């Protein structure tokens, strides 16, 4: 057997995980990470393709064969520096990217067998640096004296901040919440992305000189025009898609129906799973229903299970093939005992005399003609009504553009859904000196796309600060 054939045959190195029956009741991270030996073994599977598909699949074009080669050579210090040149949050991306649709989806080994575990290796390199690294800061350009305000501390804002501080600009991040990190701190749960990792990334930026101002609701505490008056030369808007969507069906304001944003914010940002050691309460459902089947829905369902639910059900109007969540999380959710009610849609909520949720009525659906998104449209089956008993319902059917900032800012053009119109290549908005990117431009998407948009905007901002608009 040639070296190449051997590699094709070698099995993908699985990442150790907490057993489902244990982890379904705790908030510790589910996959526990590669050892050095595992990482090296997995890295050796990579064929080092000349024209690698994996890189094309990564929205920020991480040099995947390059960093994997360094891991195979046990040069972990260089591996992480290699990744940093295109991706400033590898500990996060390695954990949460939908790799099956991105890098790993286009890995040549995936054609016949399992693709290289690129995400796991990226995570390994980042974790290794955090645990064993020198902590040495990357080089920084001399100060330019230009000031940039970044609004929102999610992945896209943090990327802009990191890129521009390295280029010598003075950067301040304004965050509405009392803690920085965006969805990474308030949305994605501890068991999938430990908050210490996000805090570490933010701290890294602060050590580089980025100022982070929390409790600053831009549009209320300070306006964009006031930021310009205060002397900022450019502003980047990375405020995310923070507007919860509800179903608009009868009974929606009963006690026990929460948006996923509220439920996850209570659990993650406010650490309500530790109540009463912390002061913020969270409803503990016995029988929980989660509406939707994206990452947000999986995170809500798995949180409910960890808070002690007897049953947790995902109700989704399309079929399994259309579930938008990461494959790994759907798998994890199933292992943890979460049930799926597919091709089902709720029609109304049922409550008791105290205004508390007791159940919901649903309709069965079947798949009809393809709709605008190319997916077959679910249509209700007449007379298929049935009831589900539940005392907690988490609504995770998507989010929209929060108008708080955009409606109070003149000169910023929005599309018909309220998202900011920005140039795809540069992130420039219709307002001079203002860029935007991430979920507030594209609608709810992914961490890596938000970071990609941030990178492009940072390049454009740098050009502007150097040469003009």
């Amino acid at each position, binding site marked *: 057997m040639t070296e190449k054939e051997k590699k094709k045959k070698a099995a993908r190195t699985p990442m150790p995980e907490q057993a489902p029956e244990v982890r379904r009741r705790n908030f510790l991270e589910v996959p526990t990470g590669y050892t050095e030996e595992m990482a090296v073994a997995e890295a050796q599977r990579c064929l080092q393709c000349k024209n690698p598909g994996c890189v094309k699949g990564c929205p920020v074009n991480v040099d995947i064969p390059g960093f994997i080669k360094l891991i195979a050579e046990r040069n972990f210090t260089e591996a992480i520096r290699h990744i940093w040149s295109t991706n400033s949050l590898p500990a996060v991306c390695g954990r949460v990217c939908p790799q099956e649709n991105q890098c790993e989806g286009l890995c040549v080994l995936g054609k016949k067998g399992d693709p290289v575990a690129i995400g796991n290796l990226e995570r390994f390199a980042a974790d290794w640096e955090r645990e064993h690294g020198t902590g040495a800061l990357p080089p920084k350009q001399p100060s330019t004296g230009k000031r940039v305000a970044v609004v929102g501390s999610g992945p896209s804002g943090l990327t802009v901040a990191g890129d521009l501080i390295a280029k010598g600009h003075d950067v301040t991040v304004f965050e509405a919440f*009392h803690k920085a990190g965006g969805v990474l701190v308030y949305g994605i749960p501890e068991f999938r992305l430990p908050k210490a990792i996000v805090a570490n990334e933010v701290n890294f930026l602060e050590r580089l000189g980025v100022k982070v101002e929390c409790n600053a*609701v831009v549009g209320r505490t300070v306006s964009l025009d006031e930021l310009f008056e205060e002397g900022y030369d450019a502003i980047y808007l990375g405020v995310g898609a923070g507007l919860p969507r509800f179903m608009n069906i009868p009974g929606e304001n009963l006690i026990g129906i929460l948006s996923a944003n509220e439920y996850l*914010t209570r659990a993650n940002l406010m650490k309500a799973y530790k109540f009463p050691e912390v002061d913020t309460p969270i409803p503990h459902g016995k029988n929980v229903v989660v509406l939707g089947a994206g990452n947000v829905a999986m995170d809500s369902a798995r949180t409910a299970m960890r808070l002690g639910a007897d049953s947790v059900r995902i109700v989704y109007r399309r079929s399994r093939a259309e579930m938008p969540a990461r494959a790994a999380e759907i798998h994890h959710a199933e292992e943890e005992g979460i049930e799926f009610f597919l091709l089902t849609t709720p029609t109304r909520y049922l409550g008791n005399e105290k205004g508390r949720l007791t159940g919901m009525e649903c309709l069965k659906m079947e798949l009809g003609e393809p709709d605008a998104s190319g997916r077959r449209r679910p249509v209700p089956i007449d007379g298929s009504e049935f009831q589900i008993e539940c005392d907690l319902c988490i609504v995770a059917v998507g989010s929209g553009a929060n108008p708080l900032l955009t409606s109070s800012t003149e000169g910023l053009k929005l599309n018909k859904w309220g998202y900011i119109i920005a140039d795809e290549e540069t992130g420039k908005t219709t307002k001079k000196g203002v860029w935007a990117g991430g979920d507030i431009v594209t609608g709810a998407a992914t961490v890596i796309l938000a970071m990609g948009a941030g990178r492009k905007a940072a390049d454009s901002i740098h050009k502007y600060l150097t040469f003009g608009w």
Partner: protein
Amino acid sequence: MFKIIRREEMSQGNVILNEIEAPKIAAKAKPGQFVILKANEEGERIPLTMADTDPAKGTITIIYMVVGKSTALFKSLKVGDGFQDVIGPLGKPTHIEKVGTVVCVGGGTGVAVLYPITRAMKQAGNRVVAIIGSRSKDLLIMEDMMRAASDELIVCTDDGSYGHHGFVTDQLKVVMEREKVDQAVCIGPVPMMKFCSKLTKEYDVPTLVSLNPIMVDGTGMCGGCRVTVGGQTKFGCVDGPEFDGHQVDYDELMMRLQAYCEDEKRCYERFRTLHAAG
């Protein structure tokens, strides 16, 4: 940290005033707006209206009733201590306009929320009649400030220990019978706002109320503060906190305020035990 520079106890220690250093918020705040405060790392995010602001000094003033764990924790803070987080100004400011005669009705700590609105209504050139009430004399707050902020102040107590004997609604009725009222502003416990609104509707007087649903972020991202107004769902924190009193579904609001009552009791008990143990 947002430092407390002045602290007063009112209403037998059940109501606390804190003046807090928060220059950015003080510079921007308008009557009717609120802040969210968090005492420490483990703390809850608690919404409180700004009863006063001093942009020159860079301070805001909050007045709150001690009803549970978080407000009890706030009460334990002394001058020189501070809040870890203060966020604001949040919510829509009150629409202040010269309309003629305005009646401002406040019950309990609602008076604190009402005070800056009353003052602004008078400054805008309105004739302002203020009515404030409490259960008994020693629970009444801000009488002198309200007197200074209005053209006429009517005080009432439920038990008759001071001022008129009876509810604020009784006096509201007296005023509406006696003269033409162009606008009412009613702020206090939900049942009080409900009954005031019912009454002003009979007299066809446009009425503003300030709602206090349970909140988390205060920026429109969670929907926890949902209230039904005119048959439509609104977010209290960004669409309000003030709404047309004739359109609000008060029963739903009262119900939703009970969402966490068992947990809250448990949390407060625990705090009291720990606090007593020192």
